[in-house]
Structure formats: structure tokens, C-alpha cells
């Protein structure tokens, strides 16, 4: 049996990682303040927990714990907020492992009227300040990644071609998922890698790129083979968004025998939302990599 987290020796063992968490949390808040963001606190209890086919939510009495604050934050953009961030807990049932916990901290932010390259740069800046807070390279197991080096920018097509894989826009969602899992260990190998332009089948809440309707303004940032962040040039077309949500929820029903209600209030708000870009970054993972933690439990104050 593993030691309880309040065991003095176990806690002392985790202290360096927890202190790194405190330092990075402070640095992240200071950075957003310097960028003139407003910190918002979206409600965790919601009537529709998100948009992801493969994520399971905690449910009770017709409400859910949110799996992401995305819908709520976009409603705040529709309400007139311009630059907002949220640093809070989200819940995803059944996620457990060295890189996963059912309850984890998501850093999510949005910039109205900003192109998605702007939030790509934000992701790099945040990774750098975490690395600077611990004065160490990002690291995970045997891998090292210098966050301060020139990031590597790859389109998904380029990442697939480099690995000798076929055109990702021709793959089904399942095929794509199987291939990207194989690619991940190679991403962020020495510098941060930003993979962008995802096939439209993987677009989720991202808009199509202007130059190629087969790909979307979506990116993910990797370090040491670990996915740290996921961002979009946000889709603001309620018609296309409804079609995608409906298809995704039908897929969820057919695969898992359950579905989530479509958040009609979100679709209504979308028509009032300005063009925007946003990203979500796994804060615990960032702390893990910056502090050299062995598993996510090392960086959680009260691990399960």
C-alpha cells in the first residue's frame, strides 16, 4: 500500500514538487496580470459538462462537474469580456495514471480579437516561466526539453510525413488517434513542439483555417513527449458548432451508451461571441515537468 499523503515522510518527500507548484502558480498569475488579463471563476457545477466524445463526467442529480470551463468562458466573451483566464479544478471520471488524475487543475485563457498564433506564443511563454521558476529544463522520465530554445512548429501533416505516415486528413478519427499516440513520444524531444493545423475531423471547437478548409486552427504543445496544452482559433459559427456537437454526442451515445445534453445557452451565446483564440494547459503536468516529478501525485497537495 502506498503511504497516505499526510504521512510525514511521504509529505517531506513531495515537498520540493509542491514548493515548485506554489512558485509556478504565483508566476503564472503574475504573468496574466502583467498581460492585463482578468481572472474569472467559472462555476464547476453545470448542466452540460463539455464537448468531448471520449471523456466521462461526474454526474449527480441532473448536474455535472465540468470537464473544462470552455462553454462558460466563451459565454463571458459573449458578455463582453476581452482577456480572461481561469485556474481551477476540472473533473474527468476514470482518468488515473502517472500523467492523469480524475480531478486536476486546468489553466484556460481566451483573447478576444486575437489570432491563434498569439495564444501559441502564450503557451511557450508560460512553459518558459515554469522552467525559469525551477531553474531546470522540463523533464519527464529520461527526456529533457529546453523550454527556452526556439520552439519547433509543425503542422500535423508535417508531423505525420516526418514519421512516414499517411496524410492525416484522410484518416478516420480512430485511425488518427492511433497514429498520434505513436507520434507523441517524438514531440517536444529537445525543444517545445507546437503541432498545429489539425484535420477537420479533430477540430472540436476550432475554426477552419482560411487557407485550407481540410484543417482547423487547432494546436497542441508538447514537451518531453507529454501533451501540455491544446488551443484553438475559436469557432464562432453556431450552426457549424451545433452540427459538430450533435455529431459528437451521437458518437458518444453509440460508443458509450450515454450522451451529454447540448448546452443551448452556449450555442445562443456563440452568436454574440467575438472572434477569439483560447488555450487550455494542464497545470499539474506543467509543474511535473518543471519540477522533475515522478508522477502527477507528486504535485497534487492532496492526491487521491
Amino acid at each position, binding site marked *: 500500500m502506498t503511504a497516505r499523503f499526510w504521512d510525514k515522510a511521504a509529505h517531506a518527500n513531495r515537498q520540493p514538487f509542491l514548493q515548485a507548484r506554489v512558485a509556478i502558480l504565483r508566476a503564472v498569475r503574475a504573468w496574466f496580470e502583467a498581460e492585463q488579463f482578468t481572472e474569472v471563476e467559472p462555476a464547476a457545477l453545470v448542466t452540460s459538462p463539455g464537448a468531448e466524445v471520449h471523456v466521462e463526467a461526474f454526474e449527480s442529480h441532473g448536474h455535472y462537474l465540468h470537464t473544462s470551463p470552455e462553454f462558460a468562458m466563451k459565454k463571458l466573451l459573449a458578455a463582453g469580456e476581452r482577456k480572461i483566464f481561469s485556474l481551477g479544478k476540472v473533473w474527468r471520471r476514470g482518468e488515473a495514471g502517472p500523467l492523469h488524475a480524475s480531478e486536476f487543475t486546468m489553466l484556460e485563457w481566451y483573447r478576444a480579437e486575437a489570432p491563434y*498564433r498569439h495564444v501559441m*506564443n502564450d503557451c511557450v511563454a508560460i512553459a518558459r516561466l515554469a522552467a525559469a521558476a525551477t531553474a531546470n529544463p522540463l523533464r519527464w522520465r529520461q527526456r529533457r526539453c529546453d523550454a527556452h530554445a*526556439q*520552439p519547433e*512548429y509543425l*503542422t500535423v*501533416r508535417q508531423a505525420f510525413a516526418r514519421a512516414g505516415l499517411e496524410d492525416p486528413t484522410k484518416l478516420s478519427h480512430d485511425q488518427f488517434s492511433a497514429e498520434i499516440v505513436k507520434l507523441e513520444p517524438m514531440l517536444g524531444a529537445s525543444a517545445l513542439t507546437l503541432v*498545429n*493545423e489539425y484535420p477537420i475531423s479533430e477540430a472540436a471547437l476550432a475554426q477552419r483555417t482560411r487557407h485550407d478548409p481540410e484543417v482547423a486552427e487547432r*494546436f497542441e504543445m508538447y514537451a518531453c513527449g507529454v501533451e501540455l496544452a491544446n488551443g484553438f482559433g475559436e469557432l464562432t459559427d453556431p450552426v457549424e458548432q451545433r452540427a459538430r456537437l450533435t455529431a459528437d454526442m451521437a458518437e458518444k451515445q453509440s460508443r458509450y451508451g450515454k450522451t451529454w445534453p447540448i448546452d443551448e445557452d452556449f450555442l445562443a451565446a456563440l452568436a454574440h461571441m467575438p472572434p477569439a483564440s483560447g488555450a487550455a494547459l494542464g497545470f499539474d503536468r506543467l509543474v511535473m515537468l518543471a519540477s522533475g516529478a515522478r508522477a502527477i501525485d507528486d504535485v497534487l497537495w492532496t492526491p487521491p
Partner: protein
Amino acid sequence: MIRPAAANDFAAIRNVITHAFGRADEADLVEQLRKDGEVLCELVAVSDIAVEGHILYSSLPIAQAGQSLAAAALAPVSVLPAFQNNGLGGALIRAGNERCAAIGCAGIIVLGHPDYYPRFGFSAEAAAALEAPFSGPHFMALELQAGALSRGGRVRYARAFGV
């Protein structure tokens, strides 16, 4: 910000060019041009995060009636795919063209898209009198000294181009 490229940008520049073109040929060309001492002007577009774009001009002497006219070949210009359609390429070309004029180039030659380069003053007409391995609408020139290119002459690309 656009500034001259420095030696500690070279690894980042390779990354930018490779991803912009989706292959290594142009990055290899740039490195060979540097090695051969053929670089006239090399600029980068940088943010405080990364090198986002790059442009290089190499020396391109034009032989005219026993004399050699100093001109420049613009190639390659590249912007990271995620940062394209943002005016970065155009800003690099304008800054580079100005730099070439300042160091006394008589003109600039480019092999590029006829819908794109004319907005910076390039035209196929300006290149028409030149004797070169290329011709047609993609082979364009910009005169920096009035009449310098209309007198014709034979252009000699740097060896690294292999033409």
C-alpha cells in the same frame, strides 16, 4: 521585430525554413550560401518567443559590357506556417529590399509568384532584358538604380543554386 540574422539564430532559421517549405532543400541552400560567403543580406522576423520568419539575399553579379553590376537574388523567404497571412513575409521583403538599396545593389532578382511580388515593385518587364537561366512571368526584377537592369547583361547566380 525585423533585424539582421546572427549566428545564434541559425538553428532556429533552419527550423523556420524547413517547416515553411516542408522539406530541407531551402535550408540546405541557405547554409551553403553562408559557407560560400555569398550572403548579401539576411534578416529574421522575431518575437520574444521565437524566430518566425527569415529572408536571404545573395550576391548576383550581372555582366554588362565588360563590367560587373552588383545585384541581389532574393531567395528564399519563409514564414512559419502558423504565422503566415499576417504580413510578416511582406515586411521581410520590404526591409530586405531597403537594405539591398542601402548597400548599393543596382537591382534585385526573384523567381516567385507573379501575383505576389509585383506589390513590392517587382515585374517581369524589369527582368526581360537580362540573360538568365530563367524567363517568363515568374522571373522578376526590381530596379534599385534607374535603368540599371534595362541595359541587360548576363546574371550569374551563386554556385549553391546549381543553375
